């Protein structure tokens, strides 16, 4: 038995040694590749794949169908990703980290572009692969630009709007002061004044950056890393949210609200104002809506007039390891052509092409388009930083503490600034 134990132990030692070898083997080769992959295959043509979260693929399937009809040798295959943003990102990151080329073109949430570019996973759109950006809304191009290089082609965008009940408030408030002053009307009718997304998730980052940008502040400097949340303007922006929440002008229950709860509350006739994305307009005008016929939209408000919305939407990035980059480039440019962009507008999927917003026929159908255009012209992308996850956490955690009264605005912005600095090291 003793002998056997010894032999077993020897086997265990051998196995350990083998696994240690495997460790060193793995470690030495990881991180290689991608060095000059951006110079390869820039003229490549052939069938490509397009990856996108399954929630929004219905807007892209007609576009892909018309591309495939015109390009039988360079067909685009749609690969659906999970519905949740985090799951989509996990899936893409796994594939890209392994240096795979399963996804030639990827629909990236605007906030991922910088991180993916910094990891060397995206093909810069320059030289042979450059695309025309002059007709696009400038903020959407900024959201796809990292260190002065365009790394993705904006596909669609999004900006929050101020929804208001025309039966309670015939005209939209001109500025934040007017909005908060008019809350007495809502109180008299015993409905909430303003509902928005203050739950501790990405929606809180959207609302906080909206307030900070509308008051003339900025979360990070032009380099995407240096925090600027301690400026007087940024503090004033956060203070506006804190004060309105403390006074109940922003409904107390908003700290548990995502877009969906906001939608339910407003469409259910429980509030006079709401901040939300354009998709809510369709819901508010449905027959089941309690506010049907009494809804209008305006750009969100700042201290002296329209505020600066935070930008949403997708950017199409090209995988640096793709074999058919020229086809990929042509496809992302095709998505931006007027015809396809109009079909997006028809599906409440705000286009990036500025001219679509002036189409009279579309405006007649979707009365919110002019308000959306003005919101998008004032819109600011969220911080374009490779450390976006850490930055958004810094914003969320500290804004939440300030809004719920656990921390003063001065303390919260100081911590936010320190946490953003710690994020980028």
């Amino acid at each position, binding site marked *: *038995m003793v*002998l*056997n134990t010894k*032999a*077993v132990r020897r*086997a*265990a030692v051998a*196995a*350990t040694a*083998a*696994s*240690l070898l*495997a*460790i060193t083997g*793995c*470690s030495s080769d990881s*991180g290689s590749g991608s060095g000059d992959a951006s110079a390869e295959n820039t003229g490549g043509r052939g069938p490509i794949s397009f990856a996108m979260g399954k929630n929004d693929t219905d807007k892209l399937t007609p576009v892909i169908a018309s591309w495939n009809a015109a390009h039988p040798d360079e067909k685009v295959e749609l690969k659906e990703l999970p519905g949740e943003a*985090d799951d989509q*990102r*996990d899936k893409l*990151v796994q594939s890209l980290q392994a240096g795979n080329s399963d996804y030639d073109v990827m629909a990236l949430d605007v906030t991922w572009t910088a*991180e993916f*570019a*910094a*990891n*060397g996973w995206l093909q810069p759109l320059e030289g042979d692969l450059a695309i025309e950006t002059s007709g696009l809304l400038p903020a959407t191009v900024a959201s796809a630009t*990292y*260190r002065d290089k365009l790394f993705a082609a904006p596909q669609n965008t999004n900006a929050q709007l101020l929804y208001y009940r025309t039966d309670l408030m015939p005209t939209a408030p001109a500025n934040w002061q007017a909005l908060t002053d008019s809350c007495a009307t809502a109180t008299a009718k015993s409905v909430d004044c303003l509902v928005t997304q203050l*739950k*501790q*998730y990405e929606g809180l980052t959207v609302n906080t950056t909206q307030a900070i940008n509308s008051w003339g502040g900025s979360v990070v400097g032009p380099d995407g*890393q240096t925090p600027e949340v301690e400026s007087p303007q940024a503090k004033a922006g956060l203070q506006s949210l804190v004060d309105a929440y403390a006074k109940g002008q922003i409904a107390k*229950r908003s*700290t*548990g609200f995502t877009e969906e*709860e906001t939608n*339910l509350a407003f469409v259910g006739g429980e509030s006079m104002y709401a901040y939300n994305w354009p998709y809510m307009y369709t819901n508010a005008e449905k027959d089941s809506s309690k506010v049907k016929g009494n809804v209008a939209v305006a750009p969100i408000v700042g201290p002296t007039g329209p505020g600066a919305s935070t930008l949403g939407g997708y950017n199409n990035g090209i995988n640096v390891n793709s074999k058919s980059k020229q086809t990929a480039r042509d496809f992302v440019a095709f998505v931006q052509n007027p015809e396809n962009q109009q079909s997006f507008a028809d599906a409440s999927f705000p286009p990036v092409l500025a001219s679509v917003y002036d189409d009279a026929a579309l405006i007649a159908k979707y009365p919110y388009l002019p308000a959306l255009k003005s919101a998008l012209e004032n819109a600011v992308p969220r911080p374009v930083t*490779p*450390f976006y*996850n*850490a930055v958004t*956490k*810094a*914003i*969320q*955690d*500290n804004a*939440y*503490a300030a809004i719920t009264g656990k*921390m003063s605005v001065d303390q919260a912005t*100081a*911590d*936010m600034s*320190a*946490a*953003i600095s*710690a*994020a*980028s*090291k």
Partner: protein
Amino acid sequence: MADSAGPRQADEARAAAGVLTDSGRDVSASGREVPDSGYPGHDDIAPPPRKRDLRAVWLIAPTMVILAIVILYPVLRAIWLSFQADKGLDPVTGTFTKGGFAGFDHYLMWLTQNCGSGMGSCPPGTLGADFWPSVGITFFFAAVTVTIEVLLGLWMATIMGRTFFGRSLLRAAVLIPWAIPTAVTAKLWFFIFAENGIANKILGTDIAWTTDPWASRFAVIVADVWKTTPFMALLILAGLQMIPQDVYEAAKVDGASAWQRFTQITLPLVKPALMVAVLFRTLDVLRMYDLPAILNGDSGATPTTTMSILVVADIRNGNFNSASALSTLVFLMIFAVAFIMVKFLGANAVRTQDEQRKGDK
């Protein structure tokens, strides 16, 4: 891993000792002679030949290799990763570069909240600052849920152990919460605790069950207790049914009250099974992820952030190395808890089986 080898050997030694004494007693009872195999309990196997018999090695080797690949390698790899720095940004090119060796930096970051400029420098809004709160929350959940589950489980097991009409139906019904996948359970409770959900409707309140710190912790505890009490009850029930009825009859004859029978007979005799159940559940709760993540979010900053949620949140931020350090810390913590429970509280699965076997005879 060096830590784990010691206690495991000790356990094996202890278990072996237990087996020896047990079978010694068996042998004397049956009056058989023990062959000098050195392995009692396998009496019918012939003693090994003098020559080196390598068959056993060959039989064990595949298992050892698979275990090494599946368990040893990931653990070693995680430990190795935890000593490497996270990737950093090259200020000139704006691209990520590999971090290099970091020593104990990640461990110090978590344990002493050192985010680059000394102890306690992790500001609120960083994952580092969430570490100690998450440790506190995890152990709080473990203590509260396991306590409640033991009490409820004992009660349910006592009822299920009785003979009455429809007993098998009751047993099947009790199992339902345990049979539902945790993710589904969490989603169900998520709807129950929604702003306009059943909980608020029934109670006539508008409590923010998923955002208010104590309400959300309470929600997690309720959901966890609902789901896992049946498991506890079944493990305890198995222990209860090992207790021979004649012990109770003897106690009755001696005039013991129901309470005395419970405290003097049931509790001591069910203790081994109970301790194993408590051990399983404690380890389970210490690595809890899905329930609080689905109920209250997995951002790492919710009032119900457990250690596992923090690990995943850190991985999502691309910090594989500090996440490895954190998961190593979690591993050590859970290991320490398991060690204490096995060593000092007698929650030992192996020995319990022996005792149960004895109980049969």
